[in-house]
């Protein structure tokens, strides 16, 4: 997608990455254009701990290249790849991380911090809509599961 794979991404390309994520799929690109400048690129070598379970979370990550293992101790919960997101709830609240994240390959991640995100929401509430929709969907799915379980 980038003009040259080694060059840093243009803001417009970062917008397209955001748009490809489920949480921002329904947010128009012109609004995501305000979020893109908040994406900070970070490189992680293979087997680097990105964050630890129990830490206070204040940012979310988008995997641009590479893969990340989400785990509780030695138990693997998920392996995430390109264009996947983790720690997204930390953008909305500063609770402790419920699991750890470790890079399983050399990774390029984009980090979005909570503080500037909050500031952006003040002027661009539409950005929060994508989040709220996803949370509602998860809540509904969870409710549905609970009802089915009770039956």
């Amino acid at each position, binding site marked *: 997608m980038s*003009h040259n794979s080694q060059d840093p991404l243009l*803001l*417009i390309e970062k*917008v397209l990455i955001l748009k490809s994520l489920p949480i921002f799929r329904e947010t128009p690109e*012109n609004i995501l*254009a305000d979020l893109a*400048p908040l994406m900070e690129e970070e490189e992680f070598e293979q087997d680097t701990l990105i964050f630890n379970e129990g830490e206070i979370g204040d940012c979310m990550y988008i995997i641009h290249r590479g893969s990340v293992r989400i785990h509780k101790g030695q138990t693997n919960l998920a392996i995430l790849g390109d264009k996947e997101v983790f720690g997204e709830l930390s953008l909305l609240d500063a609770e402790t991380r419920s699991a750890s994240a470790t890079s399983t390959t050399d990774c390029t991640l984009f980090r979005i911090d909570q503080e500037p995100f909050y500031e952006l929401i003040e002027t661009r509430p539409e950005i929060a809509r994508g989040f709220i929709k996803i949370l509602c969907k998860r809540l509904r799915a969870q409710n549905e599961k609970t009802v089915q379980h009770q039956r």
Partner: protein
Amino acid sequence: MRSNRFWLNLLNIQKQEWPLVKKLFWLQFFQGAGISFFFTAEFARFLEKFPVHELPWVMVLSSLLLWLTGFAYTVLEHHIPFKKFNAAIIFFMAGTMLLVRVGSTVITDNWLYYASLAWFYVLYLLNNLEFWGIASRLFNIRQSKRLFGVVSSGDIPAKFIGYTLALIVVPYTGTLNLLLLGVISMLISIPFYRSIAKSESVHFEDVHESDRVHHSSHPVRNLYLTFVSNKIIRRIAIISLLATACVIIVNYGFYAKIKESYHNDVELAKFIAFFMAGLRIIALITKTIFTSRLTTNLGIQKSLFITPLLLLGLVSIIIGTSYFNQDERFIFFIFGASSIAVDVLRTAINSPVLLTIMQPLPIHERMRAHNIIKGIMDPFATLFSGVLLLLLLNYHGDINLLTLCYTLIILVIGWLTGIVFVNKEYVNMLVTTISSRYFSQEEFTLNDSGTLNKIKEKIEHGSEQEVLSILSMVASKQNPISIELLRLFVNHPADAVKKEAIRLVSRKNIFELQSQLKDLSGTANSRNVSKEATQAVCKLTDSLSEALFHYNQADTDIQEAAVCGMLCNKQKSIRFTAEEIIATLIRSASPEERKKALDILGIVADEYEHPLHSVLLISEKDDPLLEKGLSIIGHATSLETIKAAMQCYIQKPKLVKSALLRAGTKAVPEIENFLRHQRLSHSESTQLILLIGKIGGEEARLALGRLISEKEANLPATIKAMYRSKYKAVHASKSFLEDIARAYIRYAVELLFMQRKLQEKTPASGLLQNAIQIELTEIRELLLCLFGCIYERKNIKKSRTALMANKKETIANAMEIIEVTVKKELSKYFTAIYEDSGIEERCNALRSVYQSGEFKGIGAILDRILSEQPIIYQDWTKACSLYVAKKYAIEIDPHYCTKYLKAENPLLQETAVFASN
């Protein structure tokens, strides 16, 4: 391909709808043919055997049969899955036709003639319920308007062919064997039904499951309740009854006179077949070509008037000319013409439009409405007509066409009145359908004794949260506030309730509760309650010594509360004393003292403004204190303070904007002035204009009215702000805003043509497609805001919400509301642009608006966007254009890259740099 498109355009069908429309057409074709064979045979046999004055008895009998059928249908449809149920109806219709054929050879009693002809009405009803039940599930309101005429026209050629065939074969086969043709025809319709059920399986799913609609075990009672409680269904049912009665009476008069001219069943069957065939061919042309266009152009509401007005005209001609021309044949011919016209219009316009009107209703209500109209009101109309004709025959001894004309006039007047009432309710129904029904405080009053008692009970026994919410409801809705209730709130055991109640007493200046407040200021266990009570006492008291008593307490919090109260006191001497205290603090060299002053002023910001507040904003060097000074600007602020705050705008834009919003309408002239005289960036001016809209009020509306008429107006922001401020256009501004709406429609159409060009799949087109879609959505929003300012705001607001929901049904309902709310000349283009249909159809429909040639290629589109024609595109669209041009090596004028190198928006600037390298 081209000829196919011609036919689709002629029939007003969209390409993707065609396969389904075709199948529905054939389904109705074969069923209609079967029923016309049945009718020709039984009608001719009956009239050959009995005199015409026996026909009303058939009507009476058929009404009973229809009610029974309607009842059985209503009960069974809730117990049998939709798909199976409709298949069973088709088999049942074919089976009963066969039974009549067999029965007629075995039984020769007179009753069978009556029963067989009456059965025709039952078949007609069942076919109607089955076919419209299916069609109403498959299409939304917008599609219904276009397609109901076409899909239901299947029975017209069927009847035409049926009657023509009957005309040819009846001399050889005899009338009775026509019934066998009817059975075969009915059976042929089954494969089409199955094919529809398969391809549209989603719509055929059981509603009870998918929609979680739980039906009661009393479907008939439900029908009754729907009829009684739903205004529009009741009104539609009544006009349907009157329409059916008119048609029956007109046809009866006509057939009666025909019967006098023909003396055997074959001759009679031939005439009926010939007459009916002619009738159907006219109906077919009307229905397929004119119905959808009439309903689209006239709107549903006006289309309903066509049939009764024409009937009224024709009947009036008969009555008028009967005074000069006594020739029976002349009256008979005009009566015949009325019969043809009414029959054609009823099939071609009236029935499809009546059904279309019900489309916005939720699916279960729609089905119920349909059952009421077809299963209850039509039989009632048949019974009513039968009884009326019997009474007339009894009175006159034979059929008098003039008497029938007078009867028809009365019925038509009732019909027209009914339409007026249906139309009145139509928009309400649309709005209600897309509104979520939730509890609204505006729907009840808080001052009747029953409600007051309930509230007292809740204050006594409710939880703290409940009592707090009741208190806020009472504060906002009750007028005048009951002192008795307030006393209960103030005495409530919970501190939070006490505190809120004291604030309310203070805010509303309730002097009657002063003694209770005094008690609380001295004795309350909670420090917060004590402070709140002190502040209220010092505000309400008229004694300076009492106020100073509180101010002189050792507790600094109590002192502060006392000053707060005194600043808001109506007595000048008390207020002045407090002002001096604050002035001393503000003038102090100590930042702590100044902060203390600002803390106090912050508490009373919405009630009191100190004259030195503005001075502090201008002279304060301490940054946190300046920020504090801005953040305590409230509703009571003075013009000087607002002016002083505006001077801080460049330095602290965010804080100033919040302060202006809190200041409210007083800030509007200053913002307007600022916008005119400061060189602001586009995004800053946009934010300030939107802020005016957010502040609202008459002052804001006037300012926005001035701003929009300026040459260099920031139109998108001003339009949105006007809508936000609830701007209501008056005569002069209305035409100005309509001109703006027209211009935006032209821009949107051009964007649509760009999108059509970008449909050709190239790697470059996807990104631009989406960007243009965002522009189109933005123009839609602007148009809706403009419509909200020019026309009925409430309706436009509902449409806006429905469009945002972005579901096929809600979009259709929103478009319908816009069509009935907005001026036709604007609404027709708006709906054409934003309808949920293919881009080809939309562009074809809007060809007249877009006169320029087609875009030659992507380069031409980029050129248009980057040269900012015809609108100032969003930065995102321009950035995408630059990016696409560079990435896919599309040649553009290099000037476009340099033009945006110094853009305010970092994304656009960065992309311009990328594109220019």
